[in-house]
């Protein structure tokens, strides 16, 4: 547990240093989302039905930005060898990486999402639903993304292949996440949020095993 916390805090430390990934993810997220109302026009009824979908897609892309370096940096500089020989299992290392990635991508994006919801004139209840859906759903993005990141470690320009592997697997997250907000807008319940939570939980529990298996392949290469 101490080793786990040490690894998470080291990665947070690096991500928040100058040139770190947190500010980049937030700015990318805000900039893309802000462009949509400009392109679509200001018809409010149209805008706020688009809001959830736009914010969710932008959030997924923003999370993917820092994903390709998740294991690649540790692989290239030899840290992965040291982590593999450490007291944590590789599954534990993978989970720590998923947690720190979420803390530096999914969580900050969730926190700024109410501001972006204002751009779409989203009613307050829907804005809260959007933030909750991001809070619940983005861990799945980090978890499934970690599998892709581990698989593409040694691929040159793996950053281009990674989205092709990961995005299809993330369609349920976008569908349920958007669905949860639309349900609030329509004043009814469609069970999207519980499904999103279940998907997210299953991803976070299972992804470390798949990720560790992919890392072992690279250590033996």
């Amino acid at each position, binding site marked *: 547990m*101490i*080793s786990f*916390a*040490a*690894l998470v*805090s*080291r990665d947070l*430390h*690096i991500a928040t*240093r*100058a*040139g770190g990934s947190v500010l980049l993810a937030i700015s990318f997220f805000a900039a893309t989302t802000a462009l949509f109302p400009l392109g679509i026009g200001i018809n409010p009824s149209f805008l706020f039905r688009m809001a959830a979908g736009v914010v969710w897609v932008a959030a997924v892309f923003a999370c993917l930005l820092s994903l390709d370096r998740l294991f690649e940096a*540790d692989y*290239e*500089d*030899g*840290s*992965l*060898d*040291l982590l*593999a*020989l*450490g*007291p*944590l299992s590789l599954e534990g290392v993978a989970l720590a990486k998923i947690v720190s990635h979420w803390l530096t991508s999914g969580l900050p994006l969730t926190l700024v999402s109410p501001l972006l919801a204002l751009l779409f004139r989203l009613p307050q209840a829907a804005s809260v639903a959007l933030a909750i859906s991001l809070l619940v759903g983005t861990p799945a993005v980090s978890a499934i993304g970690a599998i892709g990141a581990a698989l593409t470690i040694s691929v040159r320009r793996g950053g281009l292949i990674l989205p092709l592997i990961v995005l299809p697997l993330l369609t349920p997250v976008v569908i349920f996440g958007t669905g949860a907000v639309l349900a609030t807008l329509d004043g009814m319940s469609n069970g999207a949020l519980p499904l999103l939570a279940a998907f997210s939980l299953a991803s976070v529990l299972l992804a470390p095993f798949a990720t560790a298996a992919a890392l072992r392949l690279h*250590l*033996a290469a």
Partner: protein
Amino acid sequence: MAALGGLRGEKLALQRGHHPLFRDLSFEVSAGEVLLVEGPNGAGKTSLLRLIAGFLKPRAGSVALRTAGGLVLSEVEEWSPYIGWLGHQDGIKPQLTPHETLRFFARFHRGADVEQALNRLGLQRFRDLPVQYLSAGQKKRVALARLTLANRALWLMDEPMSMLDFAGRALVAELIVQHCRDGGMVVAATHEPLGIPGRHLSLAPL
């Protein structure tokens, strides 16, 4: 430090892709001894270290680690708590300072004295300077400090002397001798003499 009795490799063969690196390689090291793996570039020195660390699987033969109590460990998962790794790549993050690097590693390995390691390797003067501003030799000293922190019995060292100045080389030799005196073992891959008594293992390209 959990003590070890010995390390034995028997009739090892290793292949990288379709290219055989070595075959019929046997060696033995006991507690307190150094094994110097020598050979030209491409002879498989680094691969042998990765094999002992359990990252690579031999094509034939076996490696076994014996604890001080006489227990034979043949599963890779049981070994890793004994292995201290000094790889060719240093595994040091350029954004972190030597002190932060070692503090992380000490916490990761639960315990160990960071200040003592900084002193021992002469790192106090630039402890708070991000590693990206340090020279290659200074980085090597950080990596060596990290190795002493992990408090592992079997040190696997890939070119431990490279990048280091005269004083640094003397320090590495001293660290190795001290580690062996404490009952540890060292397997060092090198193509230059280390100036330390030990067993020799020569790898020749096939």
